[in-house]
């Protein structure tokens, strides 16, 4: 069965999408067969513009129009990765985004079932790692993805107020769904650390990534782990990948 990791954050602007695309690329660069899906249908990710185009959208999976293997595109040749690198984008067209906001609970229940089916299809197609780039906060699109995942990585910026929000999501979503969760502290400054270890939930902090101005700018135009593997950010991503390998093996 493919290892499915949901990349989530309790609030937007945490660097979740940059982390997701770089982690997926890191796995593909070492020869793993990877699928990166943008499941944030309400706020499609910027990697739509960063990676080669595909014919269909992730939205088509949720609507039952196409299976996941019809939707994803292998970009390993263009990206120069050793392993297969499939990507699936959500539709950034405003009509599609508005449509998602008006879906009812029955549609969301069916969407969860179709996402479970997609996970099985990806496993059957020989994918090793599925990375779900979810929406921020708690809504149907993000919680459906968390329910499907084997592991949840919560990407958060440090700070006491954010820590309180993170605790709410851990206790109210991750734990009831019985997920193995890990925290990535992103954009860290030395004088403002978040430390959940030893507190109520005692979740492991997998890595703390320092705040680096060039990362925010460059991640809009390139995949750093592929273009500059020796960059401090890239090294952190590779370290996280190795930690995950140890946890999941």
């Amino acid at each position, binding site marked *: 069965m493919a290892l499915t990791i949901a990349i989530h954050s309790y609030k937007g602007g945490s660097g979740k999408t940059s982390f997701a695309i770089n982690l997926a690329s890191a796995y593909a660069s070492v020869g793993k067969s990877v699928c990166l899906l943008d499941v944030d249908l309400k706020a499609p990710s910027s990697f739509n513009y960063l990676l080669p185009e595909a014919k269909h959208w992730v939205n088509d999976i949720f609507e039952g129009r196409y299976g996941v293997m019809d939707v994803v595109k292998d970009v390993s040749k263009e990206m120069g990765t050793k392993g297969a690198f499939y990507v699936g984008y959500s539709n950034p067209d405003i009509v599609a985004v508005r449509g998602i906001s008006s879906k*009812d*609970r*029955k549609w*969301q*229940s*069916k969407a*969860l*079932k179709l996402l*479970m*089916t997609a996970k099985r299809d990806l496993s059957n197609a020989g994918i090793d790692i599925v990375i779900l780039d979810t929406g921020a906060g708690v809504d*149907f699109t993000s*919680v*459906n993805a968390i*329910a499907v995942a084997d592991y949840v990585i919560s990407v958060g910026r440090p700070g006491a107020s954010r820590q309180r929000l993170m605790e709410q999501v851990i206790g*109210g*979503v991750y734990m*009831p*769904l*019985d997920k193995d969760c890990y925290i990535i502290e992103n954009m860290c400054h030395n004088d403002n650390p978040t430390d959940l270890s030893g507190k109520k939930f005692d979740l492991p902090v997998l890595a703390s990534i320092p705040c680096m101005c060039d990362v925010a700018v460059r991640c809009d135009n390139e995949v750093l782990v592929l273009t500059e593997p020796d960059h401090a950010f890239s090294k952190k991503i590779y370290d996280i990948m190795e930690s995950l390998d140890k946890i999941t093996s």
Partner: protein
Amino acid sequence: MTDNSSTEEMIRLLREISGKLDRILIQGSADNESDDGILDVLDVMTLLTLPDHLRTTATALFELGSATADELAERTNKERAVESNYLNQLVRMGHVAKNRKGRKVYFSIGEGLGK
């Protein structure tokens, strides 16, 4: 009161009654939609509100798609009789559908009965 003024008053009262009937009809349909949603659809937010034992069973059923009590018990590492009991609780709550195929009974997440 002239004939004209009594006719105008009658029209005003009829419009008032018509408006009240419209509001009653809208309210009634909204109540029905709410009942259908709560009783017949198992979405992930509802899943989060279930007690631990039923949530585990329902989550496993989402993963399997359709399953017998035996298959589900194998997934959750519980006794078949225990899972059968939990599944039937979910059936009574309207979240899970139960279908007989030959000698086997299959359970699946309900599609929603009211819509």
